[in-house]
């Protein structure tokens, strides 16, 4: 365990947008160092939920506890940093790899060595003179994950993991995220399909939450689609 991850508990959180409810009455519990995956089709509120759980989106009902207590959103944002949010936080495709690294050193206050270490930890080796757009999609996502983990944050966000990836790429990314989680960082991800590596699955739009082994204390719901992953 290199990093002390955060624990995230959501209790009946609801978010609304201009067109009504985006997600409603969602409960979730994620322990430190777990890989939690929000599963749902596009447009089901996956990104909104990721933002809400990381203190980046206002909820209209329910509450979120980070490390067992409600926290100020700015502190939560500092603890849980995005690797990729689409839309909202994506690598700029027209920059070179080294420029993206430099950018991150400025915006996240991390050192060059930390980035190198994070890339090495993920087994990522890309041409730093290459444009981000020229990278394979899985390399691109891996770079985003590496840049997010460079500052050794307690938690990271990875939106829409499998988008545009071949099965081999998907496996590679899930493995990497599993490794990041195993190193202690709590990982919140979203995907259109549930990966086998996930510790927690949160299904949208059905508010189906799987707490794995720990099923005590939290209200669950009750649809047939409820599915145990582990």
């Amino acid at each position: 365990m290199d990093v002390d991850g955060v624990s995230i508990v959501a209790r009946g959180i609801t978010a609304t947008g201009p067109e009504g409810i985006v997600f409603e009455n969602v409960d979730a519990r994620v322990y430190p160092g777990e890989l939690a995956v929000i599963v749902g089709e596009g447009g089901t509120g996956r990104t909104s939920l990721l933002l809400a759980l990381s203190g980046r989106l206002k909820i209209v009902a329910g509450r979120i506890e980070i490390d067992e207590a409600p926290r100020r959103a700015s502190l939560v944002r500092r603890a849980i940093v995005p690797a990729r949010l689409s839309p909202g936080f994506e690598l700029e495709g027209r920059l070179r790899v080294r420029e993206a690294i430099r950018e991150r050193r400025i915006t996240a206050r991390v050192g060059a060595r930390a980035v190198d270490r994070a890339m090495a930890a993920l087994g990522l080796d890309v041409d730093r003179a290459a444009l981000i757009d020229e990278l394979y999609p899985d390399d691109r996502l891996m770079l985003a994950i590496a840049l997010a983990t460079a500052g050794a944050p307690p938690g990271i966000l990875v939106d829409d993991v499998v988008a545009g990836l071949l099965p081999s790429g998907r496996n590679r990314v899930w493995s990497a995220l599993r490794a990041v989680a195993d190193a202690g960082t709590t990982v919140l991800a979203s995907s259109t399909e549930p990966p086998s590596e996930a510790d927690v699955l949160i299904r949208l739009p059905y508010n189906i939450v799987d707490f794995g082994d720990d099923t005590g204390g939290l209200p669950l719901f009750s649809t047939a689609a409820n599915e145990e992953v582990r």
Partner: protein
Amino acid sequence: MKAVYLAWLELRRFRGPWRRFVPAVLILIPLLYGALFLWSNWDPYGRMSAVPVAVVNSDRPADHNGEQVNAGEQFVQQLRTTDTFQWHFVDVDTARSGLEQGRYYFTIRVPEDFSTRLANSTRSAPQRPAVLLTRNDANGHLAGVMADTARYELQNQINAAAYAAYARGLYGDLGEVRGKLGTASEISEQLVQGTQLGKQSTGALARGLTGVRDGAGHVSGGVRDIASASAQLDQQLSSITEFTGQRLPATTEALLDTSGSAVRDLNTITGGTAAAQSQAERSAGALAQLANRHPELSGDPLYRSALDDARQLAATTATVNGAAQDAQRSAAETQDRALALRDDLDPLQQDVNDIGDPATRLRLASAELTGGVNGLSHGVNTLVANIGVAQTSSGQLNDGARRLADQVRDSLGRMPPAGPTEVARASSELGTPSVVRATTLNSADVYGRGVAPLFFGIALWVFGLFAYLLFTPLNQRALGGRTNPLSVAIGGWLPAAVLGVIGGLVLLGAMDLTLGLDPVDLPAAVGLTALGAAAFTAINHFLRAAFGVVGGLVSLALLLVQITASGGLYPLETAPAPIQALHSVLPMSYLVDGLRVAFTGGEQWHLAWDAIVLGGVLVVFLLLTSLAVLRQRMWTVGRLHPQIEL
């Protein structure tokens, strides 16, 4: 430094074969907008001569006092000499269809009764002649506005033509009259010169005649002297004649008688004296012989005295004898001369008689001369008196000629000149008795230079609006990361601001070099353009960063409001009250005001205040953007899935 690097990364996004030109194209946006408009509208009023205008002359000449009034033709001729518009002299149908189809922007028609009305203008109920101007706003309203601005000049042309016709109606052909008056003036000048000469010569003549009169007086005096002298001469000659004829011969005879008796007496005397001498000499000889014989006597004093007496007596008698002989010779000579005199008397008498005749004739002639000279003297006196009268008259004649010349010259001066240009000038002076002289402080000279500040403002605003269609207002990674909000804000503003400043300066430079914007205060123009670009970019950046696409629309609305509210075209007072109220709160007002001072001059404190306001706007909007950054670190679903997207 973070902001600068973020800005640099934003610019680095524009790479690739086409995208790399995006910043360069952005720089050219102000130029594209500002320069294109200003170039095409730099001096529209200076190019009115390219605007086609139809002129129709339907006027029929009218008669007035035997003079033909043809004011319509006169007007057309006046127009031909000007290039206010591009005149097309056509018939009425061509003009109408041309106006309707857009070939002419407006038409000017001289109606049939133009001359008639003018010719009747001296009658009791005059009607003002009119010229009809027809516009078609389908060809563009501003062309009509231009026609209005030219109306003053047009009015002058019409006035000139009307005046010329009017003057002809009143005075006939003014030009001819004027020409004749000119001739009269020249002749009267000559008359003045001639009478002046006459006056001078009669003066001289009078002076000469006075001399002659004086001379004649002298002559008649002399002649009188001659007459009296010749009378005396005649008288003298008469007594001489008498003397030589009668008394002189008698006297000569008496003289002859006397000298004859004297000669004879002297002959007697000479005989006695010669005997006395020889007696005395012998007495003296006898006494001397006595002494010889009686030497004792020689010592006797008595003897000696007797001898001396004898000797003296001898000597005296010798002298007397000599004198007597001389006298006798003289008397003989005298008698001879008296004889000769008597012989000469006859020719003398003859000569004296010869003199008497001419002397008599002289006396008679001199009497006649005296009479003639008296007549001459009389005549000269009369002449002198008459010349005095002549001198007075020639002086009066000269004065009269001078007054005549003055009168003629005066009339000529009062006579209005009748050439086309002079008529035009005279009519403009008569038609508009007063003028408005305009002086412009801080003159913009041409339309383009005057509206340039507004178009600089619009160009820079359009740049800001356009820039954030291409630039990302805020760096997503920086927004989602830990960079401080101000750095994120500046990092998003800086790339566009730099390009905006460059673009603004490119516009300024291009305007200065190609159109001759020639700012009076170049440093201020450069500084204010840069500041304006920075401030406007900051405003657009804020709108775009805070409100996304909606912000772009707000910016567009602000642009349109500011075009009207910044007072860059018409005076603000002509705008509706709400627009006026917005004037002082909209930033473009200050850029326009400041650039106006920098381009064409004005109050320096305006410039300073405008710069302060624009600088304040810049700072305030960067801070507002920072607040937006702070707020946007918390997402909303609405921002995640925008309702409005471009």
